[in-house]
């Protein structure tokens, strides 16, 4: 990768810079501004300094307690869905048919949930899980399992997790499939000559080749699950109680429900900071993995 140094390239980047600056930096400045103030309505603002941030990080206060609880829930949720979706996605990718019209059919069906508006995903599962009119809820109750996602916190969690698996496993699967497709047939032939077992083929050839796409998959899945809002909001509304209230739901409650702009802004900044840090870690790992691989590719 011998890129030439050319400062004029900035002109090519300028449109992107302006568009994103307009829709990211300007609003973020408003958030910073709000986070230092308190409001009692009527557009009257009072200086509050770092008060909100102190409260936010102190679990004994109402705001801090709610924030940290929703953060904990959200982290748990992200870890659970990663633990399910990544292995499942790999298995599904390995199960893809090799050729023929079934490949296209499988790809289209896999991609289908990804293109459904998020609130419709919520609606689908809201209906599907209802004990009275939904197939899933009805069947479970008919089998003697007492299942009701509206009143039972565990059922609500299971529903939200299954919904996310339904919605997003395809993304992981499609990414892995793309990685698998890039493996030359010669690798498999070599493995066959060496008498490698299927597991050895997976570990030595398929997994390393999927490395990069898996990183992208984990990054996207972690980020999107960490800011999940619409789907659980439609299905459970954050309930029962607060059991499925994730950070975004809490934030919207405070910002647009209670119109507590100061608190909401402080929460936004801390939330954004966490995401920025995680994003940076992933980005560094990804670019390092890329630069380590480059020389090998050149040799091959």
């Amino acid at each position, binding site marked *: 990768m011998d890129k030439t140094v050319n400062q004029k390239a900035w002109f090519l980047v300028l449109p992107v810079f302006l568009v994103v600056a307009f829709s990211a930096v300007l*609003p973020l400045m408003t958030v910073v501004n709000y986070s230092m103030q308190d409001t009692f309505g009527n557009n009257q603002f009072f200086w509050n300094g770092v008060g909100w941030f102190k409260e936010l990080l102190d679990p004994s206060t109402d705001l801090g307690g709610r924030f940290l609880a929703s953060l904990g829930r959200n982290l748990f949720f992200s870890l659970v869905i990663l633990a399910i979706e990544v292995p499942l996605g790999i298995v599904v990718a390995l199960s893809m048919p090799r050729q023929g019209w079934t490949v296209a059919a499988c790809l289209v069906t896999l991609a289908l949930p990804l293109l459904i*508006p998020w609130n419709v995903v919520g609606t689908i599962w809201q209906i599907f899980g209802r004990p009275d009119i939904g197939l899933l809820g009805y069947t479970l109750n008919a089998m003697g399992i007492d299942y009701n996602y509206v009143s039972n916190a565990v059922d609500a969690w299971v529903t939200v997790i299954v919904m996310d698996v339904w919605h997003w496993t395809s993304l992981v699967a499609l990414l892995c499939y793309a990685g698998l*497709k890039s493996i030359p047939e010669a690798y498999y032939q070599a493995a066959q000559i060496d008498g490698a077992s299927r597991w050895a083929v997976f570990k030595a050839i398929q997994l390393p080749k999927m490395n990069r796409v898996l990183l992208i998959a984990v990054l996207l899945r972690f980020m999107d699950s960490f800011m999940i809002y619409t789907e659980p909001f439609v299905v459970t509304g954050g309930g029962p109680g607060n059991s499925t209230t994730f950070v975004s739901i809490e934030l919207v409650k405070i*910002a647009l429900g209670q119109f507590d702009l100061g608190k909401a802004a402080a929460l936004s900044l801390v939330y954004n900071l966490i995401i920025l840090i995680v*994003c940076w870690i992933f980005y560094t790992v990804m670019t390092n993995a890329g630069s380590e691989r480059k020389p090998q590719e050149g040799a091959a």
Partner: protein
Amino acid sequence: MHSIPGRRFIMGLFLIFLLLPIYWLVNMSFKTNAEIVSTMTLWPHAPTLQHYRRIFTDESWYSGYINSLEYVILNTIISISVALPAAYAFSRYRFLGDKHLFFWLLSNRMAPAAVYALPFFNLYSAIGLFDTPWAVALAHCIFNVPLAVWILEGFVSGVPREIDETAFLDGYSFPRFFVRILVPLIASGIGVAAFFCFMFSWVELLLARTLTSVQTKPIAAIMTRTVSAAGMDWGLLAAAGVLTIIPGALVIWFVRNYIARGFALGRV
């Protein structure tokens, strides 16, 4: 490509898992409300088109689809046209702050929409764009532009540098080279990027709902109206839901041959 034992079974099971909830929605959209509430039937026993008819004849319903498509298409055009030159720059040149800029862009893709809902509301109200498709289209740029740059950068990097150099030696000016040579070469990449912009703009609701009130309400927001004093109009809700799946399904069908590579963001 070598797969695992029992792959047909696993794939079949997974596809059933994916399709079953969708089937249930489609099934419900063809039932009358009386049938939905009173009995549990696996297929509509008295199929009816009343819900679809209502949506296609009531302007407050079908205008929602037009509104949604309007800002989605607007957003896709803006995103791709600003992202193309930037992708070329990131792929070919090194310049002051390039890595930081790239990371900053990427970090915006990851920013939670909930954080921006309120400031966007203030910003677009202040400049008079509130309740126009432009507001939503520009707001969605925050996650679509970085993604488009990311995808296109992968595809541009797949074009050998020699092609640029030959074109410039042949006397092509930069804009002419860009439009006549580069764009056709990465046409599939542009298709993939447009697909992703369409997808993420189409499925997003939080910002779209916050930035519109009357004129440009997206279909996803109109759907919430089915909750009324008389109870839920389940059949109508299901029919509206089915109709939101169709544009996505059509788009997938067009890009089905590029899906795999596209999902890897041109980086395999």
